[in-house]
Structure formats: C-alpha cells, structure tokens
C-alpha cells in the first residue's frame, strides 16, 4: 500500500489534489481513497489531505502517519513544524519551491529523493491564479512513477472540468504537464533540528479557575489577551502593498478597512504597514480613492 500526505494551505487545493490523485489511481487499475484532515475552513491555514493507493481494497481509514510520498505545497510550512515526520526510509518528497533539491532542508534524519518545482510561478503563468494543486500533481508524476502522468491529467480534466468548466479542466491539465517537464529531481539531506514544539497545553489542574488567563508567557508561548501578535500571518501573502506617501490624502480608508489591523495610523495620519501581519489581501489598494497603494506580486518587506 502506498500512502501519500499533502501539506498545503487552505485555498491551495490540497483536498482536490488528493482526490484527483486517488481518481487517477483508480483509472490506472488501483484501489484508492482520499480525504482531508478536518479543521476550521479558512484560507491560509495549514491543512493536510491524505490519499491511499493499493492493489487491493483499502481497509485502513486512519490519517497517514508514515507516508511513502510527501507533497509540500507551501515552502513556509517546513519552517513552522516538522512536516516530514514519519516519512518512510525510502520515501520521496515533492516540494513547491524555487530552491534546488539539494538546498531543501526538512529536518535531521530526512534523506530522500526529492523533486522541486516552482509551482506558484507556474500556476500564475498558466492558470493566472496561485492555486498550485494541479501543478504539484504533475511534479508528483515525475518524482513517483506508480501513477502515470496520463491518468493524472485525465483525472484532472474530468474532475476540474466537471466542477469549473471544460476550459478550466484543460488549463489545469496543461499546468500539470508543464510542471512535469520543469521538475528538478535530486536528493535532500535534512540538517536542521526542530525545537520542541512551542505549545502550551495545560493539564486540567493547570487551567486557571474560570479558564481566564492573564497576559503572560508560558513555556515560551504568549497566552491570554492580545497574545496573537506572535502569529506572523504576514507569511501568508503572495502580494504586497506598496504605499506612496506623496499621493496619500490621509482619508484613513485603508486603516479603517484592513481586517488585520496591519495598516498603522501614525500621529500625523499618514500610514505605515505592518508586514509581519499583512496577509496581502489587497483591500487597501482596492479602496484607496487616489491609487496611492498598489499591490506588487510576491512577498516583500519594505
């Protein structure tokens, strides 16, 4: 039995990728299953999806703990946690990154065949939107030859075609083929060590009466009111606002409309952007009456 684990962010299509792979496997004569990890449904959150492929009926229904193949759709996930945990000794990795396989570091103990592809750029080029699932499936076919590319493209065209229209299906198939051709195959050797996961999980007798917490630090984690500023949600963005102070008329609309309080109103009513928390949604650029804000492709920290 082959087990595949997809790591992505909400909105990248990890679930559709797992389903399409299972579909493709069935088309090639295998039995397969695919399902997501259940969590809150929102964009940008780390998500997982799983697929199992076997020559006989798949009876296991659990999550995948020891994958044969790891598909990493967002590079920054590997900085947050040890996502390669449980990878089998002869396992393989497909990763969406601009790096070469030798430069990829998934933590000590990982020594695996690795394919890298710049799926984000590729998806923007072919699909005109940063949804990388189909490109990653193309790269997957190159790294791992159990399910052939033709079945995958067929499954993508059918699944996406049915849901989003024939043209979208063909475009997504195209994205998979392009990614197949531009994947670089090499070997990754993990070096870095992940620290103990910074998470304060209290036992029942440690929970304060009434469950209320003060603003404090426990085991290196800020807890209580206003502790979320430690979450650097700025890592989610794929486009960055650029602010032109000369054009600004200080109407405050961007400051008012920013859902993430990432636009900081200075004492003189000009603005400053908090790039650690800006998610790059583009509301500020959309609402600006004088076009003093423009969205620039990519994550920048100016």
């Amino acid at each position, binding site marked *: 039995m082959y087990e595949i684990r997809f790591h992505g962010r909400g909105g990248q299509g990890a679930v559709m990728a797992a389903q399409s792979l299972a579909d493709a496997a069935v088309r090639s004569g295998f039995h397969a299953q695919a399902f997501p990890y259940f969590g809150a449904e*929102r964009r*940008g959150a780390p998500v997982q999806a799983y697929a199992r492929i076997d020559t006989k009926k798949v009876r296991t229904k659990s999550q995948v703990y020891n994958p044969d193949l790891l598909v990493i759709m967002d590079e920054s996930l590997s900085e947050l946690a040890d996502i390669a945990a449980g990878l089998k000794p002869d396992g393989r990795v497909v990763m969406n990154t601009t790096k070469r396989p030798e430069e990829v570091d998934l933590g000590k103990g990982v020594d695996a065949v690795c394919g890298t592809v710049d799926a984000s750029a590729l998806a923007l080029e072919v699909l005109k939107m940063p949804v990388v699932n189909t490109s990653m499936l193309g790269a997957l076919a190159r790294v791992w030859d159990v399910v052939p590319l033709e079945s995958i493209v067929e499954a993508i065209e059918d699944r996406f075609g049915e849901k989003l229209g024939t043209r979208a299906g063909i475009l997504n198939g195209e994205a998979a083929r392009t990614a197949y051709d531009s994947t670089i195959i090499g070997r990754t050797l993990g070096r870095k060590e992940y620290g103990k996961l910074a998470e304060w999980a209290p036992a029942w007798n440690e929970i304060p009466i009434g469950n209320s917490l003060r603003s404090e630090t426990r085991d290196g984690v800020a807890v*209580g009111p206003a502790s979320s500023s430690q979450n650097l949600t700025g890592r989610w963005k794929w486009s960055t606002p650029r602010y032109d102070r000369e054009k600004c008329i200080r109407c*405050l609309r961007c400051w008012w409309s920013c859902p*993430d309080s990432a636009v900081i109103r200075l004492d003189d009513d000009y603005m400053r952007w908090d790039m650690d928390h800006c998610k790059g949604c583009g509301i500020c650029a959309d609402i600006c009456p004088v076009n003093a804000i423009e969205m620039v492709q990519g994550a920048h920290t100016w």
Partner: protein
Amino acid sequence: MNRMSSMKDVPREDMLIHGHGACPGCGYAATAKNIAKMLGPNTVVYVPASCLVVFGALYPISSWKIPYFFTAFENTGAVTAGIKAALRRRGVDATVVGMAGDGGTFDIGLQALSGAAERNEDVIYVCLDNEAYMNTGIQRSSATPFGAWTTTTPVGQVVKGNRYFKKDIARIVADHNVPYVATLSVAHFTDFVRKVQKAKETKGFRFLHCLTPCIPGWRIEPSKGVSINRLAVDTGMWTLYEVVNGVPKVTYKPKTIVPVTEYLKLQGRFKHMSEEDILTLQGWLCEKWRAHYGEEPGSPPCPVPVHEEVLAHDGDPLYGI
C-alpha cells in the same frame, strides 16, 4: 468621553488585534475590529460559535485585548444578559457586547435574542451577517439570499441554489420595541461610526446588523472584501437604516437603483443564476426598494408597476349584503 462622528475620531488602539487567523480580506474581521475599537477598553465581549471564535481566540491564545467569553451557539442573548447582571451586581459599569454570526442570530440564537430583546437587557447585540454558516463550510442559513449557492443548496439539474428569500431580522428585533436597531455596512464608514456611537451611548437592548462579506463563501476576490458592500447597498440587497424607539429612519439612500446583475457577477456563488431567477430576485429587490425608501426605483431595471383596479370579492357588488 469624546463623541465620535467620523472616522477621524475613532481611536488608534485596537481591541481585536493583528495575528488572528481570518482569511485574507475578511469583511467579518474588518467589521468586528472597528466595532470593538469604537466600544473601547471598558467592554466585555461574548462570541458564540462562529468564525470569530476560530480566528479570534483559540485557547490559550487570543486576539482580544478585552475580556472575552465563549460558550454555546444558541445563547448570545442569555449569556450577554447574564454577564451584564454579574457586572451590575459587582458595581462595574462596562459595555457588554455579543457578536454572533447570522446562523447564531437568524436560526439558532433567535429565541435567546428574542428573550433578551423582550426583557430590554442592557447589552449590545451585534449580528455579523455573512449570509451562510461559513465557519463549518458554507451551509445555508435563513440569511442566505435567493439564488445563492451553498453546500446545502447546491446547483442541480432542476433546482439551482437557494429558493428562499432573506429573512428581515432587523425588523423582527425592532418589533420587540427595543431602544435602538441599526443596519451597518463597513464600507459606509461615517454612517457606521455614527451608528456604533449611538448604540454605545444608548441604554437598553441595542441591535446592530452588519453585512460582512465572506471571501471563500461568496467566491469573491480577497480585495473586494469591503468595497462589495457599496454595491450591495446600491443594488438594494442591503439597506441602511436605524430604528430609534420604534421610529424608523433611512440613514443612507443611493441615488438610483443599480441592476442586481452588477452585484451578482462579482460573486461565484451566483454565477449559475438563470435569467428567470435574476428577474425574480430583481423583482423582489424592486418591491423592497419601494417599501423601504417610499419611492419608485428607476426603470430599468425595475418595471413600472401596473396598477390594476382591484375588484373586491371577484367583482360581486352584492357581497356582504
């Protein structure tokens, strides 16, 4: 205490701070942030099950700077009333606000809301209306507009999308004879500021109904998360008014009615809609416009109504004699 009348007067300090986990471009977060900011530090916030629970505070990490409380889905009215009673008993004078979603207000929380409104509890009830159960993955609520796709009103061969019209919750609450009811849109900021300020200084039960766009649920571009509210008001899908002690007053009226297609075409949840369905929705909107603003909407998109002579009792002149 300074009175806020425009965006310039709103304080810089946030009560719902950055680092929360809402989707990029979340209208829900933008609205909640601004209401919390205006209510200030002397506030207790209660949130039932909704997106705001998931992105605002997951124990032990919280985005709120103010005391925050969370229990079950259906009891926003009851819990806020209880918090207020406890504070009164302790001699603390603080604003108590409950921020529920549309599911927690229109459907599940309706009885507790009605009870609190009937007793005229001294709390602010904010309904952040994103027109479906978005947190659990886009299921229909009674706030979902006609024709919209959700996972429980799918687009099939015969029935395409939601078949029911949106419930007018603000009117239901206003009919409880509460001191203050208002509808808000985060894109109409001056109107927004004035209404929240009014709610803040009123005593008794106050109800604020806010339209909050949902990026994945409405299938819209993240950058449209606030500006789409302008179109919602211009097309009549959303109307801005307040009811002070039972007296309704329109606070903002668009110059002319914009065809509803302008609003629909930006949203993936409406893209399947047939000509016939759009006409039905447009007709409903025209009726709403007439009833709400008390004047004829422009034609097109609204047909001029034909006033047929109503013959009572099928034209029988001797009826009732």
